[in-house]
């Protein structure tokens, strides 16, 4: 209501002042519509435009002065001879709606050509899920699809992606520059079929499509604004000025009444930004799931009967596709699965091009002689229903008969034993987790553990694929000297690979061989390196998850030689709340053993 008054006020004000031929544009210049459309950000009492290239703001002072920019644009856009308005259709339309300029965009040939190609008909937010087997990609990625009115399907729509223009950089250089703003972020456009191929088929990532419920006016503004941003350069920061943050900026420019970017000052995890959009009532009106090739392949393998599966195995091994013993209808699934399998193998670099083509066509020629079957629509776990990213955990326990209370904080993201709905099963990614422990008898507060990064990915091998499982971590932690029973802090790093065997869907057996090392003044001779073979069981059954493991460390120093048994059980009370029980038994080669148990709860927010 306040807003209405405000608008009425500026309207009246405007009509009055028009008569006087002296217009004060201040109210327009600080309206949220203008501020957000030009991506001004408050800096104390001043404004700074987020976009770095000068021509995004037409006035000389435009990047720092919304009012000067507004006045300059009104004067340029009012000049029928000046085609500057063609570069800024969303601004032009908004100023026109405020009766500040007149005219139209009919003679803007480039703009009209783009619209003719794109034929916009809606906007969809895309979330691409994690890579299979790569928990480092758990954060996901977001991009925009401009839906099309073209006849056919949305394969003919266009994807719009914001990313760092990194040139040929990769690896460490890319990471470093990406983290510290060394790149310019730019928008790129590609046919949606390219997006599908890139994510679904090459990287094997599921795509989730969230159709945005926008009015015709808002849709037009959205597309026009993307057009304005086509040459924009924005300093790219991997953590907070990334693909997902920029999508929120655009959504706010289109719907200035939304406050979507708030709270993403330090980091913007793609899945968190998706949740933010989904939390706006009625903003998303349709959700569509587009499973990755690998997801489809797994589903097809699961769907096959035993007879079909052995025909499939024989087919990919001996390349013969007659499959005696199966009815014609039963042959369809194994044949289609074989084709998917060949494509997967080729893309993964496991099959030569010539062989791939020969096998593919042989399979498909056989397939084409059989009738069509109704398509199975796969259901995925919608990622925005995953638990929230931040976690706080409270627990109480006893370590070497000393009782303690502990509080643990983690900004992101998930542990192996956390609720994994909507995330990868068997994957954990912990970033900057700190555990503070207070020992009651001794009245002592210690930093028990500080994890910089901890990644684990258990991926079960099955009868078709045999992927590796991984475990790696880097942390500071408290450790004890088994001879003297002193405690101190050490740095610990490890990396390991192994295999996981799925005894059942809910019961996995794994073995991982890690190389690790510890370093710190507390240790005798400061450091040691160790081989750390570990075997364990991980179970994920309805609301329960538990893990038991045994690890033997063979170190370059006696001090590091030990056996470590661990057990952990977690029960979900709700999506974000779980109770946890833990037990640890450490048996060093020399000195005293250590036992610890604790009980507590975890809450995600």
């Amino acid at each position, binding site marked *: 209501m306040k807003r209405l008054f405000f608008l009425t006020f500026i309207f009246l004000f405007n009509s009055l002042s028009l008569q006087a031929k002296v217009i004060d544009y201040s109210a327009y210049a600080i309206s949220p519509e203008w501020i957000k459309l030009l991506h001004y950000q408050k800096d104390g009492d001043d404004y700074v435009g987020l976009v770095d290239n000068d021509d995004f703001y037409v006035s000389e002072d435009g990047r720092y002065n919304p009012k000067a920019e507004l006045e300059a644009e009104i004067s340029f856009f009012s000049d029928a001879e000046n085609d500057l308005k063609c570069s800024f259709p969303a601004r032009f339309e908004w100023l026109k709606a405020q009766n500040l300029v007149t005219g139209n965009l009919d003679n803007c040939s480039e703009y009209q050509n783009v619209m003719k*190609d*794109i034929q916009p008909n809606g906007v969809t937010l895309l979330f691409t899920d994690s890579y299979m087997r*790569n928990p*480092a*990609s758990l*954060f*996901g*990625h977001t991009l925009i699809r401009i839906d099309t009115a*073209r*006849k*056919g*399907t949305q*394969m*003919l729509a266009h*994807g719009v*992606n914001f*990313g*760092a223009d990194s*040139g040929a950089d*990769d*690896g*460490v250089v*890319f*990471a470093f520059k990406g*983290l510290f703003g060394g790149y310019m972020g*730019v928008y*790129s*456009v*590609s*046919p949606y*079929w*390219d*997006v*599908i*191929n*890139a994510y679904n*088929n090459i990287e094997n990532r599921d795509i989730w499509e969230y159709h945005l419920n926008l009015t015709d006016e808002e849709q037009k503004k959205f597309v026009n604004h993307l057009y304005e941003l086509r040459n924009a350069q924005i300093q790219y920061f*991997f953590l907070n000025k*990334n693909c997902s943050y920029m999508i929120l900026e655009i959504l706010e420019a289109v719907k200035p009444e939304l406050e979507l970017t708030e709270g993403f000052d330090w980091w913007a995890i*793609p899945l968190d930004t998706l949740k933010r959009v989904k939390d706006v009532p009625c903003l998303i009106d349709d959700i569509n799931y587009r499973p990755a090739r690998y997801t489809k392949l797994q589903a097809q393998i699961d769907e096959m009967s035993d007879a079909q599966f052995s025909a499939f195995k024989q087919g990919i091994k001996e390349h013969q596709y007659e499959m005696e013993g199966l009815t014609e209808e039963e042959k369809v699934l194994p044949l*289609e699965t074989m*084709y998917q399998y060949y*494509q997967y193998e080729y893309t993964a670099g496991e099959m030569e*091009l*010539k062989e*791939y*083509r020969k096998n593919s066509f042989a399979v*498909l*020629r056989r*397939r*084409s002689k059989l009738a*069509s079957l109704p*398509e199975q629509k796969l259901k995925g776990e919608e990622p925005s229903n995953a638990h929230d990213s931040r976690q706080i955990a409270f627990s109480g326990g006893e370590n070497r008969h000393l009782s303690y209370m502990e509080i643990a904080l983690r900004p992101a993201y998930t542990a192996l034993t956390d609720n994994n709905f909507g995330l990868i099963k068997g994957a954990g990614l912990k970033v900057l987790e700190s555990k503070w422990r207070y020992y009651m008898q001794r009245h002592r507060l210690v930093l028990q553990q500080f994890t*910089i*990064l901890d990644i684990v990915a258990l991926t079960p091998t099955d009868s078709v694929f045999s992927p590796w499982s991984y475990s790696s971590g*880097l942390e500071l932690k408290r450790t004890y000297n088994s001879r003297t029973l002193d405690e101190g802090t050490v*740095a610990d*790093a490890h990396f390991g690979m192994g295999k996981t065997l799925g005894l059942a869907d809910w019961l996995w057996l794994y073995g991982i061989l890690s190389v690790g*090392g510890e*370093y710190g003044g507390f240790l005798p001779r400061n450091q040691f390196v160790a081989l750390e073979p570990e075997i364990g069981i991980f179970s994920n059954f309805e609301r329960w998850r538990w893990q038991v493991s045994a690890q033997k460390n063979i170190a370059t120093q006696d001090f590091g030689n030990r056996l470590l048994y661990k057990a952990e059980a977690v029960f979900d009370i709700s999506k974000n709340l779980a109770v946890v029980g833990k037990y640890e038994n450490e048996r060093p080669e020399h000195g005293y053993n250590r036992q610890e148990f604790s009980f507590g709860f975890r809450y995600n927010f």
Partner: protein
Amino acid sequence: MKKILGAVVLTAVMNLATSAHAVDSTGGCGLGSMAWRGQSGIIPQVLAMTTNEMASHTIGVTIGTSGCDPNGRITGGTGRMMLAFLEDNMEQFAMDAAAGKGETIETLAGMMNVDSETLGKDLQNNFAYIFDNDNVEVADVTLKVMEIAHV
């Protein structure tokens, strides 16, 4: 040791950064159908043919080796669009043609303005004709699809 720790941190961060935010700075052209690339030599001739044989199609734009517009947009008339689409989606199209239905067939039917169910059946029946050898050219396939759809 500090150096090692530093290297581990960097490697870890690098792993995070590249996998979550790997960026394609080429503008997104030509990611699809890697297996079918590298054989587009006859495309200009085919475009000439299609223009001659089927005058109703406007394929006035010169085309590079890839069917993708340098700005990453879908553009041009039916012939050019089909060529670009089939070049990038041949793998899925081959599957759909063999099955007689699917998203790529619906898309092509939309481009040619024909019924997708009929097109699907016709493509399935003519699968061996369209893919008559293991090294088909995208341009050949495009022509045959047009022929089968009677456009």
